[in-house]
């Protein structure tokens, strides 16, 4: 992949454990000023799986997600500590430039946010072009492939020069997924990607998540437990900034170990 930076050469390579995890979250704390929103979270994510973060509003699931591509620290006054090891490299290492980390870890947001001044094509090409790629034929190929992978190609192939904002909400969200996929990410972070969509748009995205995991490691935040049950292989339940329970989705939903998890899953609070 031409656009990938060889970041493994920079930074300290963390010793591999016996089992290979794509993302290892080690003692991560997330802060807003003096308020600790994430408390000592430890969690390992396997390659090419879907992991769901669930929990009641304000439990820190979105904050934790944003710690994984160093977007959390963009919020004024916010910072994080601990280690997040992606492919053996600690992204919080001092020698790592967060901009380069974000090129490899894609993110999809709660509300679709296509670039309003750009066409559908340019939206998908934006990350490539603004990172210095100017080979037009490669850009065209990547744009088509990304739109196909985001299950949007057939709907937009004849109107690629129309504004990205002219699409419906669900299509805009798939456009944003295509835009993230164009950067060939190995990890895709999704922050409640269906919360502003109607059921049809949501089911399209869920279908997509199940297909995409063949190539990408996906971590998805959702407040919708059915959605977590439908799309994810692993589920992490968070409460008040702490990781309460983490395991296979089946186990969490059918046979939770902690009482808190059981009460949340069965809808007794949250």
């Amino acid at each position, binding site marked *: 992949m031409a656009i990938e930076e060889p970041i493994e050469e920079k930074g300290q390579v963390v010793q591999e454990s016996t089992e290979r995890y794509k993302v290892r979250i080690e003692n991560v704390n997330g802060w807003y000023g003096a308020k600790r929103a994430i408390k000592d979270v430890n969690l390992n994510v396997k390659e090419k799986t879907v992991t769901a973060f669930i929990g009641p509003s304000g439990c820190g699931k979105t904050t934790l997600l944003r710690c994984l591509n160093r977007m959390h620290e963009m919020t004024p006054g916010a910072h994080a500590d601990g280690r997040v090891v992606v492919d053996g490299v600690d992204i919080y290492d001092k020698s790592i430039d967060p901009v380069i980390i974000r090129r490899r870890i894609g993110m999809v947001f709660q509300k679709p*946010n296509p670039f309003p001044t750009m066409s559908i094509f340019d939206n998908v090409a934006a990350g490539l072009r603004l990172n210095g790629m100017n080979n037009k034929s490669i850009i065209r190929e990547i744009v088509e492939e990304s739109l196909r992978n985001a299950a949007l190609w057939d709907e937009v192939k004849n109107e690629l020069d129309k504004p990205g904002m002219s699409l419906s909400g669900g299509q805009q969200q798939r456009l944003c997924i295509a835009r993230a996929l164009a950067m060939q990410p190995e990890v895709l972070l999704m922050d409640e990607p269906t919360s502003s969509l109607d059921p049809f748009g949501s089911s399209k995205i869920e279908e997509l998540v199940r297909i995409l995991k063949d190539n990408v490691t996906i971590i998805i935040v959702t407040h919708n437990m059915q959605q977590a049950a439908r799309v994810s292989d692993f589920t992490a339940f968070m409460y008040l900034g702490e990781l309460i329970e983490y395991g296979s989705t089946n186990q969490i939903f059918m046979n939770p170990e902690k009482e808190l998890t059981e009460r949340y899953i069965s809808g007794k609070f949250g």
Partner: protein
Amino acid sequence: MTIDSNANSNSKPKNNYRDILQETVSKKYRRRLIVNRLVTIFTIVCVIAAVVPLGSILLEVVKNGASAISFEFLTQPQGSIGSGTGGIGPAIQGTIIVVGLASLIAAPIGVLAGIYLSEFAKKGIFADLVRFFNDVLTGLPSIVIGIVGYIVIVLSIGSFSVLAGSISLSIIMIPIVVRVTEETLKVVPYSLREAGHSLGISKAKITLFIVLPSAKNGIITGIVIAISRIAGETAPLIMTILGTSLFFTGITGPVDALPLRIWRLASQPYESAHAFGWGSALILILMILAMSVGLRLLAQKRTFKTVN
């Protein structure tokens, strides 16, 4: 509804809020209708108060100025004083040169300073100081800027000049552009910047290629307003370009401008000079109108590139 119907809910009988509200609303209903009508009439009166003086000035300018306009009037320098011959060619040329140069100086500086305030220095003493003095500068009387231009530039070059005029006008223009740019950029949703960051795009490129294009229309409107403002300035030009009856001779030489020409023509005792003055005013208004429409059209041009 009676109080009894609530009896089983709580020991204390509840007030019947629905009836109380109903009573209040019907009592105040007539008053509300009248107030509503009055507010509507008041806003219409204000619109008339704003439009009538402007409209009558425009009408007066067209009525008195239209007859003066001819090809000779637009292209020739003025003839001998009081003869009613020649035209305002040098003033039109001078206004285009001086205002154009001032815009070329002020627009980039103003936009970039606005970007700095909005994107790079949101907080901090320095940014607050810049904002404060920028606002002070907006309210500075233009004659003061003219005098400073005279002392700093005219006296050091040794001649009234295009350069002195343009720089003085750009100083009037910069604070307006800075303010409008900052305010417009602030309105661009943060989610767009966030999307840019998530793609690993550098902050400079996010600002330049994602945020700025989204704010383009607002910024261009601000530039249009600022140019309109300086195109009609007279006081600083008296102190800097002086005014002449000749065409442009060079960037360090004096030049004429429409507001100056209007002022000089109006202070002459001849009927023909007054007619020329009205004609000049009409031309100035038409030029500002054309600039405004032209820049806006340019801004509205399709921004979407076709697929290559």
